[in-house]
């Protein structure tokens, strides 16, 4: 039991607290901008290729009859 706890302690100490905090902050900011803007960041309306369904902004819903 004691060994188990001590090994866990060693593992945790390897992760820098600052790195964890930075990763959490960045992940939150990414989710924030995706939700505040659009799935494609600022709202991509597609690439030149109409068949390239990037972020689904160019998905042809009209011709699919889903609109």
């Amino acid at each position: 039991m004691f060994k188990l706890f001590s090994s866990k302690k060693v593992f945790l100490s390897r992760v820098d607290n600052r790195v964890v905090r930075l990763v959490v902050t960045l992940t939150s900011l990414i989710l924030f901008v995706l939700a505040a803007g659009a799935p494609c960041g600022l709202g991509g309306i597609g690439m030149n290729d109409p068949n390239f369904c990037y972020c689904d902004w160019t998905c042809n819903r009209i011709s699919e009859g889903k609109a």
Partner: protein
Amino acid sequence: MILIFAIVIGLVTGYLKAKLEGIPYRPDELRFLWLVLMAALPQFLIYSLPITRERISDQWIPFIIIGTQFMLLLFVWLNRKSPFFWLLGLGLLLNFTVISLNAGWMPISPDTLESQNVLTSQWEIGSRLGYSKDLVIAKESTNLWILSDILTLPKWIPYRVAFSVGDVLLALGVIGFLIHNKQAAQETSKIYFQEKLES
């Protein structure tokens, strides 16, 4: 995608600035992160996940968009003391206003779509654009047209995109937040003076 690019710019610039100043890079800690998760999850279901986005009726989208934007506004308000969150909040508020005044959709005009070479077979006036938050509305029928998705990138950039003034403020706010490293600088100088006093 461009807002993600803003995060990368802010992160790289902030890190390099901290390196030059010889202090650790540590952006301010954010609180109430669960609000962001609560806002991002429904949007993931209506925009990205094929199984759900095809089943959720377009009639529900305005309620989901306004509800999730409100949650984000609350998140910004609760973190208002964080650097540049006033700018983030202003951008969000502008988007929220124009969406609210246009029945819960972000308006995009046929002119903007044509300028971005989006085929006319891909949109219809009065219909949702793809699986997006945008609704194609004529300029004359748009409330607060100036705040809608009217801005585009220069022609020489191959990425086709339309964005709003609110999005620009959001991007600037994110960059400002990530470059700002005052907390780490203050902590470093505090430690420095403490060491000086002790010696």
